[in-house]
């Protein structure tokens, strides 16, 4: 068919041309395969060049890309067996053949590269007796972002075809560069955002965000600081609402695992079988409804910390499984046979009396010992009542920030709070402050507002009987009545409290007559305690 359209004298050349085109087509197919394989640009480019080289040993090639920072051409990949130290080579704009191609944004075909005065031979790669084809690499048809250069084995009169092929490959490379650059940009943006969020989180979860100046809390902080350095299992004990989770956060964010994940799970929230797939994950089809494979919390926390709240609620059967992970760091997904190994620090928390549970046979003794390597006991709020004023002020400020308005709490209110025994601990205090903030229209939380929140002030014991209160200036009845800074209402309330709500006695303290103080109680709208 071809012999009919082409004169017979050109037949050998035509055959060569067809052969070349066929081999180019095969090469193009292989190149496209290589390009779609991975996103690692350097590696991909090197593979493209070696593919071209292997295809009939036709081409010595080089890809150089524009460096955005310096504006210079950097050699990104070239095909040569000993092409190790090529990163040192760079071209300024307009320099050498490659620089010229980049600047003019036009392809350049040289029948013999040695004849060209611009040829710098910096790489010692190209044979100066052979032809040379260089084409710009473009993204979206605009200006060049790099140069693709290669050397065919000999000038066989088909340079034009070869140049066209080179341009095709250059276009493919351009697409690969574009893709890999946009993926890289996106990835680094995500990484930056993740790091900044993590910094933010860490700032909110340090020890400085936990209020506590009492000796008992200092002991807790010291323990937590020390334990943060190691990967030991930690057991946090204490009544609910004492801040076990806060301490767990602080331990995680002050440990070398701070860049890893902190995964939390409340063991009481799930029944046994769900708990198992939640913690260890499951394989596809492990049970009805397990449509997909799923990673468990242990896997999610790899390299980080797993916080298991309410550890006392799990059944003995599950305790055995947990014990194994704690001891070996190994487990299997539900329905899976592959043993997975993870590097996770476990922080467990409970408000139960584990010793009693062990005695009753509800909690495994071996797990009890295992967890007790580093126990930290959180003191109840009534054991550190001196922290109440700071806590209350901190919580009021927090509510104020949430509600975006000014809130303050008076000393008389603080004194009442210090006489409560807080069975619900800090959580109860927090709820109380939230309620008080809502009830206080003016933004000042005083003892009347506290009364309205339902805290039973009348039933509270006298300061003397309220326990270990000392040295903070609150509750010990020694408010300086002559202090000019406290307002009239506060002064009267303080005097009444010091006088045990005997008005005549309070009047003496304030150097007033009983009539004067009765009048003030009325006008200042002070609720007098009933006995």
């Amino acid at each position, binding site marked *: 068919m071809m012999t009919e359209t082409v004169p017979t004298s050109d037949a050998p050349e035509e055959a060569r041309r067809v052969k070349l085109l066929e081999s180019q087509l095969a090469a193009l197919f292989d190149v496209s395969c290589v390009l779609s394989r991975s996103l690692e640009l350097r590696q991909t480019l090197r593979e493209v060049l070696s593919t071209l080289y292997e295809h009939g040993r036709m081409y010595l090639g080089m890809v150089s890309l524009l460096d955005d920072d310096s504006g210079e051409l950097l050699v990104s990949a070239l095909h040569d067996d000993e092409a190790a130290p090529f990163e040192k080579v760079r071209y300024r704009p307009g320099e050498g053949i490659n620089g010229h191609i980049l600047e003019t944004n036009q392809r350049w075909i040289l029948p013999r590269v040695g004849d060209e005065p611009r040829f710098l031979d910096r790489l010692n790669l190209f044979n100066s007796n052979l032809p040379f084809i260089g084409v710009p690499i473009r993204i979206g048809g605009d200006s060049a972002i790099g140069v693709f250069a290669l050397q065919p084995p000999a000038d066989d009169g088909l340079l034009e075809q070869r140049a066209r092929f080179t341009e095709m490959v250059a276009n493919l490379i351009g697409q690969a560069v574009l893709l890999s650059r946009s993926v890289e940009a996106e990835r680094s943006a995500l990484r930056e955002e993740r790091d900044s969020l993590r910094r933010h989180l860490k700032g909110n979860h340090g020890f400085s965000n936990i209020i506590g100046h009492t000796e008992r809390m200092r002991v807790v902080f010291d323990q937590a600081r020390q334990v943060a350095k190691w990967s030991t299992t930690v057991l946090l004990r204490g009544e609910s609402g004492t801040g076990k989770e806060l301490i767990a956060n602080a331990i995680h964010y002050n440990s070398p695992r*701070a860049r890893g994940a902190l995964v939390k799970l409340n063991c009481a929230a799930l029944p046994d079988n769900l708990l198992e797939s939640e913690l260890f994950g499951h394989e596809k089809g492990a049970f009805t409804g397990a449509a997909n494979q799923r990673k468990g919390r242990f896997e999610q926390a790899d390299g980080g910390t797993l916080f298991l709240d309410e550890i006392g609620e799990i059944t003995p059967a599950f305790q055995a499984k947990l014990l194994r992970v704690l001891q070996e760091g190994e487990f299997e997904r539900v329905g899976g046979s592959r043993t997975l190994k993870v*590097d996770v620090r476990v922080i467990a928390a409970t408000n139960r009396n584990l010793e009693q549970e062990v005695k009753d046979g509800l909690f495994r003794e071996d797990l009890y010992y295992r967890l007790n390597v580093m126990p930290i006991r959180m003191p109840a709020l009534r054991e550190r009542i001196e922290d109440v004023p700071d806590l209350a002020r901190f919580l009021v400020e927090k509510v104020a920030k949430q509600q975006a308005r000014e809130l303050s709490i008076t000393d008389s209110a603080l004194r009442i709070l210090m006489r409560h025994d807080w069975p619900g601990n800090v959580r109860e205090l927090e709820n109380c402050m939230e309620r008080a903030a809502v009830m206080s229209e003016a933004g000042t939380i005083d003892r009347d507002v506290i009364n309205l929140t339902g805290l039973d002030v009348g039933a509270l014991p006298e300061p003397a009987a309220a326990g270990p209160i000392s040295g903070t200036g609150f509750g010990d009845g020694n408010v300086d009545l002559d202090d000019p800074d406290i307002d009239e209402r506060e002064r009267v309330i303080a005097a009444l409290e010091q006088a045990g709500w005997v008005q005549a006695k309070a009047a003496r303290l304030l150097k007033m007559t009983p009539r004067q103080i009765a009048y003030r109680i009325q006008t200042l709208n002070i609720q007098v305690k009933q006995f």
Partner: protein
Amino acid sequence: MLANDITARRREIERAHLENLRARLAEQQLAQGMREALTAASYQIQVPLNLIRAANNMFRSGSGHVEVFADMLAQISSAGETALQTLQAVLPAEVSEPGVRVNINELLRHVLTLETDRLLASGVVVDWQPALVLPELSGHKNELRSLFKHLIDNALQAMHESGRTHRELRLTTRALDNAVEVIVEDNGPGIPSEARIKAFEPFYIGWRQRRGRAGMGLALAQEIVNQHGGCIAIDSDYHGGCRMRVTLSHVEPSE
């Protein structure tokens, strides 16, 4: 006049000499005291440990009695308690440093200057790329200097152990929003991925030559970083050696 000058200079030299002597003596005393304290500590811990060992042997041979053992356990507990209390009592007081405004670039430069001799002696190429503008942070100057010194010392030791002839230490600083990132990179052997968290534990020694090392460098670094509301980690994406990433943010002025 001239004689007076010379006398004054002599006195000056003598004073400097004395000062130097005093500092060296204090340092020696500190080191000796530390050694003594640690030796005593190991001895103290031996008491409960020996008791446990004895009890263990008795039980293994099947001749132990539970009542005796319960009594023994109480003894072990109290011995352990005593050891702990003694140790905590000899703990030196924490040296607190006032928080001031610091420029991280400046501090890093100080440390580099201090280490110049060592860097030259081991033929390390230093690539120092400070950010042009860094936000000033509040922080503890000496602590931050010692943080950077720990990291650079580690990098030097790593490159020393690699036995490579081409040694490169790269220090980069970068401004983040309200924080500063410091990157310390070396082309040593790197830290294996399974040790990247463990390396920060006290007593961890990753060097081939372990003698005379306490394994406290990175633990101390972590502690200092924690105090500065920051984060320190070994970059897992870097394979040409070890790359430490440290971010430091504003520290609250301590009371």
